[in-house]
């Protein structure tokens, strides 16, 4: 009973072993090319557990002594030359082919004997009846007959004509490029299951990865060159060459013994960014060369570009700080703390000029100007911190800080990143505007004065208007006083009508508003002085357009017009014109009469 069980187990094992063995035909015991090396005395080539080292090179006889190590232990020593001793084999496992010895350099190829998959299924399992055929490229496989001996199969193509008897599991190779594998011969159904195979090929795919898009000057770039074998056969003797136009590649050449199909090899290549005074794009290129089992070369390349920042960099940050209650000035409750950090990543110190342009409504505290000259040591940073007081509440934005320095006689500039957003300063602020409409009037004509009080701060205020009227004017209607509260952003218009009989340029004065906010902080604000031009001319010489412009902006200054004076009527009245002419006449008369008058006086004295 036990013997029977053992027999069954053995039978099952044999079945599995047989099927496993059935696929061995895909592999071949071949000398696999592992790489080509050019080695000088003392240099070595690493191939997994094997290490080949050039011990000595005799340039006179073009010979060399090679040492072979296995797992770092000395194994064998070989005398090689380019003649009869060019090929050395160690224990049937490693073959060294010396190609050339010149100038003290030994060029050699290394092969390892190994079972390696070579054949890859091209046409999958197909059933053929007698007389049927399949086509695979140039080859035609036809089932002629099935006898007790096996299946009679004819293979034609590429100068090959073969007819042979196949049994289940048989395979035949043709010209190292085509193989027929008979999987099963079914004598009962008179059919054959077979597949065709072809030698596979490796295929290189390149990916390049860097950890960042931009680097500081002198920073180490994490550069990864990823080689993927997307083919069906392994790659051997991978050599990766890396170069860059600007960056420093510390290992321009790297090696790897082999890469199986679907496997990935990540080459971590240390690259150092250049030290540059201006931002520049640095290109890094890599190329991989590898070989298949026959020594056929395959290659792939890739490149990437990274941005290298200048070795001087600047950062600016702004922070709002609350003032103590006792020091609320200009109606503002906060002030700014501005920090500027200048960093030098170069390996030499640099003198820099830092300038920070402030809004005109900001006053730097305890500083004459916001420009500094600093010496920034190598691989270090300098900090500048100062306070800026806002002169009125509201929203503030900040410009970028600018650093300027010289390198090799040239001046370079770098700016900080933009300071994002608006910074709100709380406090109370009242803006007073005073207009008169129209600006030009005739005596007796009514003019309307408008006082606009705007709460431009962020607090509610109690405001009181005081706007005096000159004696030249008479109030017709309205009131020139007002008192009330204004919320933040709210405004109030106060209107009154005046009349005057006086002429000329009349001063209406400035309106003044005294206010107190919720936090009992008081202040006052005044408008610009307002002026009214009253003319007794019967015809208005001011054009409508000019009057409207002045009214809109409420300016109290003289009308200025760039128009060609040859084409317009000047805005002077008869009194001004006549006065000017009389004064001109008198002046001319006085000037011209000086000499005759002197002569008159002199002559009078002489005759006396």
């Amino acid at each position, binding site marked *: 009973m036990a013997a029977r069980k053992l027999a069954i187990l053995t039978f099952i094992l044999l079945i599995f072993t047989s099927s496993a063995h059935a696929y061995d035909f895909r592999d071949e015991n071949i000398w696999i090319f592992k790489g080509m090396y050019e080695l000088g005395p003392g240099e070595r080539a690493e191939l997994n557990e094997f290490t080949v080292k050039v011990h000595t090179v005799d340039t006179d006889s073009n010979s060399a002594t090679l040492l072979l190590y296995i797992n770092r232990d000395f194994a064998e020593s070989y005398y090689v030359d380019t003649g009869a001793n060019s090929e050395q084999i160690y224990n049937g496992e490693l073959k060294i082919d010396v190609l050339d010895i010149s100038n003290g350099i030994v060029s050699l190829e290394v092969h390892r004997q190994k079972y390696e998959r070579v054949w890859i299924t091209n046409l999958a399992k197909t059933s053929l009846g007698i007389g049927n055929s399949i086509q695979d490229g140039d080859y035609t496989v036809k089932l002629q007959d099935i006898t007790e001996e096996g299946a009679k199969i004819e293979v034609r193509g590429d100068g090959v004509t073969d007819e042979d008897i196949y049994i289940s599991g048989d395979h035949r190779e043709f010209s190292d490029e085509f193989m027929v594998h008979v999987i099963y011969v079914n004598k009962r159904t008179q059919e054959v299951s077979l597949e065709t195979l072809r030698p596979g090929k490796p295929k290189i795919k390149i990916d390049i990865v860097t950890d960042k898009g931009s680097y500081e000057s002198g920073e180490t770039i994490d550069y990864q060159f990823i080689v993927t074998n997307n083919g069906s056969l392994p790659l051997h003797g991978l050599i990766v060459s890396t170069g860059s136009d600007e960056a420093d590649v510390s290992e321009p050449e790297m090696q790897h013994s082999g890469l199986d199909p679907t496997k990935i090899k990540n080459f971590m290549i240390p690259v150092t960014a250049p030290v540059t005074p201006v931002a520049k794009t640095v290109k890094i290129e890599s190329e991989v060369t590898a070989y298949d089992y026959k020594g056929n070369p395959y290659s792939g390349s890739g490149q990437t570009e990274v941005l290298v920042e200048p070795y001087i960099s600047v950062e600016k940050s702004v922070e709002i700080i609350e003032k103590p209650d006792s020091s609320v000035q200009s109606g503002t409750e906060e002030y700014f703390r501005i920090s500027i950090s200048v960093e030098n990543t170069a390996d030499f110190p640099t003198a820099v000029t830092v300038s920070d342009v402030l809004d005109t409504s900001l006053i730097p505290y305890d500083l004459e100007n916001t420009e500094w000259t600093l010496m920034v040591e190598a691989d270090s940073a300098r900090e500048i911190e100062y306070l800026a007081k806002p002169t009125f509440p509201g929203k503030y934005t900040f410009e970028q800080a600018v650093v300027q320095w010289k390198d090799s006689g040239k001046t370079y500039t770098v700016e900080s990143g933009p300071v994002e957003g608006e910074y709100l300063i709380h406090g109370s602020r009242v803006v007073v505007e005073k207009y008169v409409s129209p600006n030009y009037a005739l005596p007796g004509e009514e003019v309307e004065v408008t006082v606009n009080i705007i709460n431009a701060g962020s607090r509610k205020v109690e405001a009181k208007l005081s706007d005096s009227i000159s004696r030249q004017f008479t109030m017709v209607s309205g009131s020139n006083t007002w008192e009330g509260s204004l919320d933040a952003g709210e405004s109030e218009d106060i209107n009154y009508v005046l009349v005057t009989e006086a002429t000329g340029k009349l001063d209406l004065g400035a309106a003044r508003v005294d206010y107190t906010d919720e936090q009992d902080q008081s202040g006052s604000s005044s408008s610009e002085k307002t002026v009214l031009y009253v003319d007794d001319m019967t015809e208005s010489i001011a054009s409508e357009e000019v009057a409207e412009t002045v009214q809109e902006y409420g300016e109290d200054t003289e009308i200025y017009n760039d128009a060609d004076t040859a084409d317009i009527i000047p805005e002077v009245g008869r009194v001004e014109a006549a006065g000017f002419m009389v004064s001109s006449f008198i002046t*001319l008369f006085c000037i011209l009469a000086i000499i005759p008058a002197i002569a008159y006086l002199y002559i009078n004295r002489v005759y006396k």
Partner: protein
Amino acid sequence: MELLAFIGSAMLFTVFALTVLFILVAVSSRLAMLTLLVIPILAVIILPGTSVAFLSYRHFLFADGLVPVNNFHILLIIWSTLMGIIISTEFLTWYLKTGKRKRAGEQRATQSPDIKKLLNAGVLRLRAVLAKRN
């Protein structure tokens, strides 16, 4: 158009200058001086818009636009010229009159009775000499 404006302005100023010169020669220098001042002033007071527009009309721009020349400038030039003429005339008239008057006064002061007698005697002697020769 600009040329016509210039010609018109020049004619107006010429008439004005000739009028003043005529008054200077025919009537009196003081009236000429008054006319020189009053005519433009009256024009400005009676027709302010038109007069100021006329006087401020620009004819030329010299020195790349740096020096504009309008009728006001031309009026000032005419004023200064005519004023100079009037003042010179007045001064010379006074000077000549003063010199003549002085000389006349001096002669009257220096002519004594003895001299007159001597002169009369001389004249008589001269007549006697001439009578003898005849």
